[in-house]
């Protein structure tokens, strides 16, 4: 007995023994690993954000040119009776020379020197500008025959010059732009005729063709994504939560429910493109919904989101201590009362997290949407109540979605679309951040009720 006490001499609490020191070192080491891991994550995030913001923020600004335009009546209203229906016969090709002539006349009147032909001058203006003027005239036929001050888009290359993408050196090698154009653009900018300002059209306007990146916008894609989110929000959480509650709280635990459980886990791991194939087969080929419509997209994304919602909801239901259910049942509450009065409120924060993660996933998903035709070039804003006869009367119009728009812009040749794509990613990220913020707020509300 005395031997034992002698072998373990009395130690002061202030002098850590070898074992404690080793343990403390291991703990410190682990903390450093953790900090390093967090650091890597933050670094990656910063690189991502700077690269996207760096190349994308400029898409929210656009270069415009101002000069007076003579709306010659004989060109745009050959019949001379100011009837918008007849004037619509003049296409944008009829307006182009009008703009070019006015631009040339403006330069002459102001005494601005240049050595360019009419064609080269006109090429400085955006191909989209005639359409803008035409829309304005058709909306207000009284403008015909007058001279109006307009501010119109310049071509993508000139815009790129003011954003630093196009330089004199690159213009030498570029068929689409000449150094002379850039020199003139700079002169006009110094006079204040050419300005770069915030561009709402990037968010509201529809997509534009590959030749006019300066006019391309996200309007149709945002509406398409918004409609799809409505469909997902209306279908996925109710179905997912109901299925989870049934499986977790009511269903008997047997082979059949085990099978369902395994299959749900597998579905969560199925590549999303497979859901696109499913949507193509079921919703478009079999049910004959309009392809590339937000309705079909939303249904496909709902299917894709369901496993995520079910798995997280079941996990958070399982995390509610059984003693709570027993307390309710022991008081004579029915199973449904115990679930809805006690279990569900406690599981709500987890369910919300899962739902938002699922929605965010759906918002950023591209692959399944490609298969159901949402990658189509759509310039028409989709109608909530669509008039397509062959389709469900809600959200049946063709549309595109934000991530798909990013994808299709990156496919285009003009380098100006790289900037556009990055800008679209910024918009997408903003939506995701907003959604997550809402999730956090909702969770706070529910958590406060202990």
């Amino acid at each position, binding site marked *: 007995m005395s031997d034992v006490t002698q072998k373990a001499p009395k130690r002061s609490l202030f002098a850590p023994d070898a074992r404690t020191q080793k343990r403390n070192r291991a703990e410190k080491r682990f903390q450093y690993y953790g900090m390093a891991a967090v650091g890597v994550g933050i670094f990656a995030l910063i690189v991502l954000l700077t690269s996207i913001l760096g190349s994308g923020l400029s898409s929210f600004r656009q270069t415009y040119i101002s000069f007076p335009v003579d709306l010659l009546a004989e060109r745009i209203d050959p019949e001379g009776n100011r009837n918008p229906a007849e004037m619509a016969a003049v296409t944008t090709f009829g307006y182009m020379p009008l703009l070019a002539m006015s631009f040339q006349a403006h330069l002459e009147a102001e005494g601005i020197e240049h050595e360019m032909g009419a064609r080269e001058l006109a090429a400085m203006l955006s191909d989209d500008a005639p359409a803008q003027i035409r829309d304005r005239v058709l909306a207000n036929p009284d403008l015909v025959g007058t001279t109006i001050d307009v501010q119109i888009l310049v071509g993508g290359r000139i815009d790129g010059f003011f954003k630093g993408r196009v330089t004199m050196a690159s213009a030498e090698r570029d068929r689409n732009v000449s150094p002379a154009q850039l020199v003139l653009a700079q002169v006009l900018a110094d006079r204040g005729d050419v300005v770069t300002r915030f561009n709402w059209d990037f968010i509201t306007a529809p997509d534009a063709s590959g030749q006019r990146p300066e006019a391309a916008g996200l309007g149709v894609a945002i509406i398409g994504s918004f409609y799809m989110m409505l469909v997902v929000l209306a279908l996925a959480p109710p179905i997912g939560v109901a299925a989870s509650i049934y499986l977790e709280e009511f269903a008997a635990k047997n082979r059949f429910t085990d099978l369902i459980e395994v299959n749900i886990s597998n579905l969560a791991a199925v590549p999303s493109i497979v859901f696109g194939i499913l949507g193509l087969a079921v919703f478009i080929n079999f049910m004959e919904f309009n392809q590339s419509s937000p309705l079909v997209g939303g249904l496909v994304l709902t299917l894709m989101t369901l496993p995520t919602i079910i798995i997280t909801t079941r996990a958070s239901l399982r995390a509610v201590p059984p*003693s*709570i259910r*027993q307390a309710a049942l*022991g008081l004579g509450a029915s199973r449904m*009362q115990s679930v809805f009065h006690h279990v569900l409120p406690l599981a709500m924060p987890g369910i919300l997290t899962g739902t938002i993660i699922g929605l965010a996933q759906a918002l950023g998903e591209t692959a399944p949407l490609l298969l159901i035709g949402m990658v189509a070039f759509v310039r028409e804003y989709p109608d909530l109540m669509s008039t397509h006869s062959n389709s469900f009367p809600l959200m049946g119009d063709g549309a595109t979605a934000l991530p798909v728009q990013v994808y299709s812009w990156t496919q285009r040749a003009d380098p100006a679309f790289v900037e556009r794509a990055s800008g679209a990613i910024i918009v997408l990220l903003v939506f995701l951040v907003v959604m997550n913020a809402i999730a956090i707020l909702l969770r706070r509300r529910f958590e406060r009720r*202990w």
Partner: protein
Amino acid sequence: MKDLNEMSQTDQESAVDVLKMQARGVDVFYGAGGRTGSAAGMAADLAADKNVTHAIKGVDVDIADKTVTAFIGPSGCGKSTFLRVLNRMNDTIEGCRVTGKVTLEGEDIYDPNVDPVQLRAKVGMVFQKPNPFPKSIFDNVAYGPRIHGLSSNKADLADIVERSLRRAAIWNEVKDRLDAPGTGLSGGQQQRLCIARAVATSPEVLLMDEPCSSLDPIATAQVEELIDDLRSRYSVVIVTHSMQQAARVSQKTAFFHLGNLVEFGDTDKIFTNPSDPRTESYITGRIG
């Protein structure tokens, strides 16, 4: 001489007692999986299965009306399990099977046509581990009356809550913070809150699983007073590890050992003159 007198008195009392609940040949198995089948066949089948815990073995108990019945026995002998047989809480435990016959006022509570929800409104329960809802103290107590429609208006409900909290000897401690979360109370306070919650629904039979295990002597005395008070209207079944408590509050005592009901009878007799040697060794502290 005095002992004998008291015994004959209790004998007379129990002679006029009305039978409230009756259990005959009850067996309980844990880990039975999804097995079903004819009751007798299944019981034999499960009893033979090595992977199944045979927690209760052929137990017969009579619970008299307006009586306190105490269940005593060493840890793990099946007291809680048998208590849950009486309000079918075992139904909620995965893989738990009960065979045998249990009646409440002559009606078979395990009949397929019986709704366990209705049964549990009549046979209330206080659990071994305090399990208040993560809601306010008021809502904890008011929950039962609310779902059973026991109060006609708010004042009525507040009245039931106050009365229940008073009976559970916790009113003075919580009357100023009825809106505070029930989970924020101390362990002993939580236990009394759970007692108040169970009492609030006015059950005909109240099952209490070690209701005083985390209470100080003063609160214990108050809960014992409550039990005595409840006896005037209801039956109470109490599981306890305290021999003194069983002797103090109960009229009938059941001694369980390894899933068997060893002895069941008048409390006085069990504590003064047990007929089974196992009972004697347990109450004198030699097995347990």
